[in-house]
């Protein structure tokens, strides 16, 4: 599987000093790295690293919109390294879903946006709001790419 790692977006930092506890990031920063995987179709993977909250979720939407303008039509949100996500992250997912599927999709299940490896608490949040019926969730990147 070919993989091209794009130049990372500049990371917007807040005033939190980077720190770790138990090997996990403890800051409220969000870093977004983007790569392209070649499956049956090219798949854009947004690797979200850190904290997703009301102060920074729009970075995700903006980066997805840029990818869309650059031709991306199938997208995976890699949540493996997300340390916290509130409903702001849900709002970002919803906006990306609408961008990729259109405002009146033929079927609710997303064909063009899939999730990779949400940590347990975030998986619980996604289930609580009913989004687990909307997005396929994978634990293996290669399998996720092959699903498009």
């Amino acid at each position: 599987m070919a993989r091209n790692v794009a130049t990372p977006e500049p990371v917007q930092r807040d005033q939190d000093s980077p720190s770790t506890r138990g090997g996990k990031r403890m800051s409220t920063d969000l870093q977004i790295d983007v790569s392209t995987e070649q499956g049956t179709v090219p798949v854009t993977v947004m690797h979200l690293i850190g904290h997703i909250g009301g102060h920074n979720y729009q970075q995700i939407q903006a980066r997805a919109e840029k990818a869309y303008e650059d031709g991306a039509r199938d997208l995976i949100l890699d949540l493996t390294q997300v340390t916290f996500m509130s409903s702001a992250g849900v709002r970002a997912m919803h906006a990306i879903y609408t961008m990729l599927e259109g405002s009146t999709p033929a079927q609710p299940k997303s064909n063009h946006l899939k999730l990779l490896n949400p940590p347990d608490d975030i998986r619980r949040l996604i289930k609580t709001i009913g989004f687990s019926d909307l997005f396929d969730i994978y634990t293996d990147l290669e399998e996720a790419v092959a699903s498009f």
Partner: protein
Amino acid sequence: VNPGSLEVAAELGNLAEIHRFVRESIAGWDLAPSVVYDLQLAVEEATANIILHGYRGRPGTIEIDLSRQGDELVVRLRDDAPPFDPTGLPPPDLALPVEQRPVGGIGVYLMCQAMDEVTHRLTPRGGNELTLIKKIIPEPS
């Protein structure tokens, strides 16, 4: 345990500072990770709701007290926005197709789901006080 307190301007940019305040206040309390996540989630949803739907862009402040009382975590949030009781909102209809779901109403629902008890009262000065209570599950040793 005496409460930690924070007063911040009601701006989305301060949600990160509020998150850090909660994290530092509970450091050393040996809470299960799921309890920490639920507490952080509820505080963020509550404060974002005050900023977006209470003050609606007008300047104001949010006061936060966080304490441990027996086997409960207690958070009190006070603001001077127009009186509004979020606990009276109906839960979102999760059966609706996603394009018809009011995503903005999800935050209050998540806040209530994450906490064991959420109550609202008017303050003597005419603002709002929201109390969030979470039962403590000790971290397995």
